[in-house]
Each structure stands twice: as C-alpha cells, then as structure tokens.
C-alpha cells in the first residue's frame, strides 16, 4: 500500500520541480533594475495611503468557522459512504442522527442570520 503513496511522492517531487524550473530560468534571463518607484505598492496609480490592515468584515471569519465545523462533519460521512451497504439499516439510523445534527446546525446558523452577508 505504501508503494502507491511512494509514487505520489515521486509525482510530488516532479510537481515541485516544475514551478521551480521556470522560476529559476526566469531569474537568470530577466532584467533586474528595481527602483524605489517600481517597487512601491500599487494603489490606483497614486501614493499608497495608510496601512493594509483595513477593517475586514467579521463575516469572513464566521464563514471560516462554520466551514471548519461542516467540513469535519462532511468528512466524517465519507467512511460511512463506502461502508453503508455493509452496516445496513442500523448504520443508516446512526448516520441519520449524525446528518440531523448537520442539518440542525445549518438551520440554526441560517435562522440566526450567521449566513447573511450584510
């Protein structure tokens, strides 16, 4: 079984070398004449004003939190998806309870307005 993953490892090496080769090549080929104006931050063509850390909506963070939770729940259903024909009706009941929790969580967030982009 590990052999399969070793092949993935080899492929990973290939995949890592692929972006690196053009980057390194370009590093030697391209001109390098940076000036302070060139390397300044772009902002509408004017001088950049203020810090990058403008205030972000807390909503981004709420979505990320909700994502973590639901992602775990969906991942947990994968072993069941391959085994549900083996574990049969009781497995179905058990998974239904689990799915119910997922639905309840989603419904709760929805009703509470946590999924609202306002």
């Amino acid at each position, binding site marked *: 079984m590990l052999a399969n993953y070793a092949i993935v490892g080899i492929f990973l090496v290939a995949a890592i070398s692929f972006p690196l080769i053009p980057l390194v090549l370009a590093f030697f080929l391209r001109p390098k004449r940076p000036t302070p104006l060139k390397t300044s931050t772009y902002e509408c063509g004017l001088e950049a004003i203020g810090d990058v850390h403008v205030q972000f909506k807390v909503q981004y963070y709420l979505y990320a939190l909700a994502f973590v939770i639901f992602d775990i729940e969906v991942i947990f259903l994968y072993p069941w998806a391959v085994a549900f024909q083996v574990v049969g009706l*009781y497995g179905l*009941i*058990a998974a239904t309870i689990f799915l119910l929790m997922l639905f*309840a969580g989603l*419904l*709760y967030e929805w*009703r*509470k307005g946590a999924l609202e982009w306002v």
Partner: protein
Amino acid sequence: MFQLTDIPRLLPEILLLVLALLVLGSDILERWGRTPAAQLERVKSSASLTAIGLGMVLFVALLQSGYIYRLPETAPVNFFTNIIRNLQSGGPGGEPIAGAFATDHLTMIARLLIIGAALVTSLLCLDVRPSAHPGEFYALIIFSTLGMCLMVGANEFLLAYLAIELTSIPLYLLAGYFRNDPRSAEAGLKYFLFGAISSAILLYGMSLAFGAALNGVGSATNFNDLTRFDRIGTFTASSGGLITLAMLFIVAGMGYKLAVVPFHSWSPDVYEGAPTPITAFISTASKAAGFILLFRLLTKTFPAMTGSPTLDTAGGWTAVLAVLALLTVVIGNLAALPQTNVKRLLAYSSIAHAGFVVLGLLAWAAAQPFDREQGLTALLYYLFIYSLTNLGAFGALALIGQQTGGDDLTHLRGLSRRNLPLALLFTVCILSLAGIPPLGGFFAKFYIFMVGWQSGATWLVVIAVVMTIVSLYYYLRLLKAMFIEPATDLTPVSLPRGIGAALAIAVVGVLVLGIFPNLILSVLERV
C-alpha cells in the same frame, strides 16, 4: 454493534438530546417580537421548557433505575405496566453499544445525581436573564448534562474523552456567556484554555495507556478489553514506566477538570466570573461526573497499580492521589481564609471539598472488598450531599448577587434583616458545607474520614480533620456577615419562586439525608 435493547438503556441520554434540540428549535423557529415583553416571554418559555423537561427526564431515569419502585414480576399485563416493564428493562446492568457504555448501578445513581443537579440549576436560571441568545443558554445546559451522563457511564477511552468535551465545551460557553461583563469573558477564556490543555494531557495519557496495551493483534480502547486480555491488567508500577506515565497523565488531566491542587488555579477565577447558577452547575455536577469517571478510569485501566496511600514503596495511583488530596485539603482551606469575595471563597471551599472526595477513592487500596465498596458508597454519598449543599449555597448567592449588585462579603451584611428565610436557607447550606451535625455535610465527612482511615491513610485523615476545623473560620465569617454585622442597606430582598424552589429542594435534601442517611445509603450500597 447497536441493538434494539440498547435503546431503553440509553433512554435518559436520548431524551436529553431530544430535549436540547426541542429547546433550541422552539427558540429559533419562533418569530419573537423585539419588545422587552416579548423578549422576557422568550426567556421564560425556554427556561420553563428546560425545567419541566429536565424534571420529566429525571422522573424517567428514576423510574427506570427501579430504586423507588420496581415493577413486580407478577404484575398484570396492561398498557402502563408494559411501559414500565420496557423502561425497567434498561435498568442496572448491561453494556450497550458493544461495551462502550456501562449502565451499571454506578451510572444509574450518578445519572440521577447529575440530572437532578441540572434540574436545580435550571430552576436557579428561571430568574437569570441572559442578555442575548436565551434559548441557547438553556440548550447548552442540557447538552452539558448529556455529556456528563455519558461521562459517568463511559467504558471506553474515546467515549470518555468525547464525553468530557461534550460536557466542557458548553460550560466554557456558559461561563463566558455574558460577554459584556469582562469578568465573565475572562472566566470563559480561562476555563477554555485550561480545559483545552488538560484535555490534551488526558488524551496523551489515554494514548500512552493504549500504546502500553499494544500487542501483536492490536490494542483496544474499551476498558473491558484492556483488562480482559490481560494486556494492562497485569501491569504494575514497577513493570513498565510507560504505563506509570500514562497513569500520571490521566490523573493530571482529570485533576485539572476536578480542580485538585496543584491543578486548581483556574477555578477561583472561573467560579467568580461565571454566571452564578453556572458556577453552581460547574462546581457540582461536572465535578461529580469527573470523580466518577476518574474512579472508572483508574480502577478499570490500572487495577494492578493501586498501590497504597501510606506512601510506602508500593507507589501506585492511590499514593499519587493521597499527595494530591493532602495538597488540596491544606491549600484549598488555607487559601479560602483571606477571601473577601463570597464566590471566590466558595470556590476555594469547593477545592477543599474535592480533596475530601479523593479520600473516598483512596479506599480502593484497602485489602477487603467490603472496604473498597464502602469507599465508593462514601464517595457517592459525599457527592450527593456536597452537590445539594453547593447548589443551595450558590443558588442563594445568585439571588443575593442579583439583588444587591455584587457578591462580596459586604453585600451579605444584614441579610437576616433583609430577608430572613433566605438567610436561614443560606445558613443551612453553609453549615452543611462546614460539616456541622445533624446536617448532611457532617455525616458525609464522617463517613469519608472513616473510609479513609480504613484505607490506611491515617495521616491524611488527621490533617483533613484539622483542616475541617480551620474551615469553620471562613464559613462562620459568612454567618457573621449575615447575622451580626450591621446592614448598610435595608431594602428587603425578594425570593422568587424558581430560586426559592431550588433552595428548598437543596435544604430539605441536606436535612433529610443528613438525619436519615439510610434513605439513600441503601441505594448507594448496591454499587
């Protein structure tokens, strides 16, 4: 494998889940108005649904356990007896879900204790107004109760761990529920950080035990399998450092949850900052569940590592616990002496009481099986009395804090003139905590000292008795503030029905169980 007969065995847990979803659903699916009256109604409906529901679950659990009424075999067959028969088929004995959960007498009794404590807490909460999200407040209490019920019956590492999390996560949220109050927010954060670290330590201990039990076939997380195959049952302290390390980690991890010195530093801050009914809940039900889980973990996973509390060469977990008990009793009581905030004072008193409870665990080192069982009985009795008393004390404090605007000793001044019944109820609880006869606290302490003595930890019992006398000082300070010191403010304090009922239950329980301990001991002895 899951079987149909498992359903009645897990019935209280299933009902708790349904109740929690019901409370949550009734809150989010209803369109509540924005007016204060509508908001008040919203809180009231969630709170009363929780209280009534918990009462019903308690009733079902009580009926199911068969301690009050056991359906005779010869009873006629009709609709009602069928219900009861089916219910009681889930009575003591059996291990549902492939042995992951044990529904023995210990679980049954502890379940009653926990659901009862949750019921009293929900009564206390009838008059607390969560600023926002009232429905979730009550649903979280029920979820936490569900976690504790699973914790006391957990017969498997994974379930034990997850049950602890299911208990703790709602409690973290509840402790920090009033986000606008910096003390509550601090309590929530501190509780969470300490809880997370201690969970990690506990989990590490569990995985070490799992690894120590590893052999050619694999390992098991189930306690039965761990011992049945002699994988771990034969381990003693001298035979493997790994298993000793596992035991130490488990004791330390649980020690954090139980706020045993030196793992106690979170508890005064959390107790002080959390909403007072939640403090009551944390200090009673979650502690009781933790002790029972600790008992199960230690006796089932490390049966050959018991050792002796006399601190001889044998070592073992009783020796570790004896040291912890010594530290807890001494430091808990001494640190309570200078406190001026009543919640902090009671927090330290709770720490000290945890030290006494550990004495009951030490009894497992005794030679005779009879003495061991006595130890467990004493432990359970102590937990019952302590829970009732603490619920009463914190309940009264919740009311005082709500109506006088603070919970410092100064706020207690002249309470006897502002509301005598409340002062008297509070006094009974304080005296029971101090262990004054004929209240429950006295007999509980007496019993546990006796058991500790038999286990061989005589030195510890002597120190504990001395410390009990020391503790009288700070308990009496509370009484002095209430009855002797002059009041700065003489406006009467009203006693709402919810808190009144909760206090009455607690005080009556303490009195009755103190005077007639056999009422409950006859049940507890079945363990």
